[in-house]
């Protein structure tokens, strides 16, 4: 049984003391490992592997991988979406995308959302998690309530915030009530404000998830470490900076990864609140919105497919770089020490 560990660090655990291999061989063939029995056992094992993994693999290949490959194929054609694509245009869709100022805009929006998601949500979430990690009353109720925005679907968040933030909506009504009527604005339609409105809504929707994740990370740090530090005379801030934050590192880095991928692929909220056309004029359009507006809505499926490919490549490159340089040690540490 050959070992394909190298590429995938997550399998490190199995390699520890060869427990994995031994366990598998033994349980598949409880009889003494004679050659025939062994062969029969292996054939049986192969059958089990095939039967158990076939449904997932087939569905995944057919409905996830194949559509992506199909998009890559359509991306080389000028294609209106019906019949077989025949009008091969090579890389010209891609050239057009990369030189289209509208695409530069949406790329900039995605980048801005990415950076702002990290620098706004990260520190707030860490601070709140540190605060809420104390043993206070009603903590579990608090945890449920701050997770509410994350559970509420995009369509509802979009419609709800859309109504609240429209020019005669509740947000401006509230401002007037508390005497700050001069601050009232057209939060959604004003091109100078819209992107910040979007950032605020995104922060509201996803910060609960970040806090919960950080809280979970904090709770898995053994109490003894803090007690030992306290006995050694460390101050509260020293403990947070030297112990809590480093130990929370893996959680922070995983959260940041999810946040980055989410920012690059943002679609639903913008589509629901602004729609593909208005988003273009209010400066909230994202790559996914651009893909839809240029592709499906304009009837140019080939171009839309090429945009999908560009989006995918950007996500993949960012993810690979992140994994290579940031997540690497987490994975290694988690796996080699992780045998339970």
């Amino acid at each position, binding site marked *: 049984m050959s070992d394909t560990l190298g590429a995938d660090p997550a399998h490190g655990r199995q390699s520890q003391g060869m427990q994995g291999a031994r366990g598998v061989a033994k349980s598949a063939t409880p009889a003494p490992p004679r050659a025939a029995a062994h062969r029969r056992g292996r054939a049986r094992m192969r059958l089990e592997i095939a039967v158990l993994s076939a449904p997932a693999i087939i569905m995944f290949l057919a409905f996830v991988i194949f559509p992506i490959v199909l998009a890559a194929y359509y991306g080389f054609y000028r294609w209106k979406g019906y019949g077989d694509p025949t009008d091969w245009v090579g890389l010209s869709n891609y050239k057009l995308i990369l030189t289209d100022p509208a695409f530069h805009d949406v790329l900039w929006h995605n980048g801005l959302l990415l950076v702002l998601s990290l620098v706004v949500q990260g520190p707030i979430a860490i601070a709140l998690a540190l605060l809420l990690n104390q043993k206070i009353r009603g903590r579990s109720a608090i945890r449920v309530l701050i997770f509410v925005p994350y559970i509420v679907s995009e369509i509802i968040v979009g419609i709800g915030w859309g109504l609240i933030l429209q020019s005669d909506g509740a947000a401006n009504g509230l401002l007037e009530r508390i005497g700050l009527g001069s601050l009232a604005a057209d939060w959604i339609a004003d091109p100078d404000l819209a992107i910040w409105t979007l950032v605020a809504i995104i922060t509201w929707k996803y910060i609960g998830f970040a806090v919960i994740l950080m809280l*979970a990370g904090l709770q898995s740090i053994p109490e003894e470490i803090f007690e030992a530090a306290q006995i050694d005379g460390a101050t509260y801030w020293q403990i947070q900076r030297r112990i809590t934050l480093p130990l929370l590192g893996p959680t922070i880095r995983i959260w940041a990864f999810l946040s980055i991928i989410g920012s690059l692929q943002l679609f639903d909220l913008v589509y629901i609140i602004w729609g593909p056309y208005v988003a273009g004029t209010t400066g909230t359009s994202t790559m996914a919105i651009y893909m839809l507006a240029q592709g499906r809505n304009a009837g140019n499926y080939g171009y839309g497919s090429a945009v999908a490919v560009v989006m995918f490549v950007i996500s993949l490159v960012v993810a690979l770089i992140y994994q290579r340089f940031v997540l690497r040690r987490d994975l290694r540490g988690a796996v080699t020490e992780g045998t339970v």
Partner: protein
Amino acid sequence: MSVTTTVSRTSPAPEPTPPTGRRGAPQKWGSPVVYFVALLFVGVCVAPVLYIVLGGFRSNSQITTDPAGLPHPWVIGNYTGILTSNVFWGEFANSLIVAIASTVGIVATGMMVSFVIARYDFKLKGAMYSLFAAGLMFPLVIAITPLYLVIKDLGLVDSLLGVIIPQIAFGLPTTVIILVPFLRAIPNEIEEAAAIDGLGRLGFFFRMVLPLSLPGVVTVGILGFVGSWNNYILPLYILNTQANYTLPLGVQVFTSQYSTDTAKVLAFTSLAMLPALVFFSIFERRIVGGLTGAVKG
């Protein structure tokens, strides 16, 4: 880190009794600043949702004259009107069918393939794991147009099955990534003991693996259910007659139909989000526990 993994996994919401040597016997109230900040944060999180729910109890004239006010008097007609409409319950039933079928499919197929990746030793297993892990980078949005064409070729456009199957497929990456660590954490000794006791591999799967990885299974189940309940873009593309709409599409159609009747829209929206919220608050502890187990690997 091994210790932390076990802790978070076996007790999803650890509220450990203070160990000996910590000051004070019963739990104290703590600093008022903490409560203030916590309340403020909770308020920010919940207020917009409350606005939607309470808005459903107001009349349109109330909303127009005082957009930020409370219901006065309370109007229940918006809610009762929707709760007695066939359209709402039809869409509710569709959402429920899609969510339950997707969840069952995600858990069943995900569990099987995760079991293979975690417990069998064969050449392609690293590649299999990487394949699903890379799936995290394939959002539905990117694949939606070709996916629609695939569904169309299979004759599943405008059928609930056309939503369910892709949802299962796109739910698999998260499922595999969460479940594999759980399954791997089951000690080999248990498997060996089961084998000695004459339990076959499949018997081992059902008698030992399923119960032992329950926290992970519940987590992926909840994620699958809520994800399916909230999914918007896939039904948007696949379903095109109102009889087949799921609630997110129903909300959108209702909103455009009654765009001038804000109170009614708010009531409809509230009722559409309620099931996911209830479902989630029941299982909240599980989900956090499962996520930690996965993150800590």
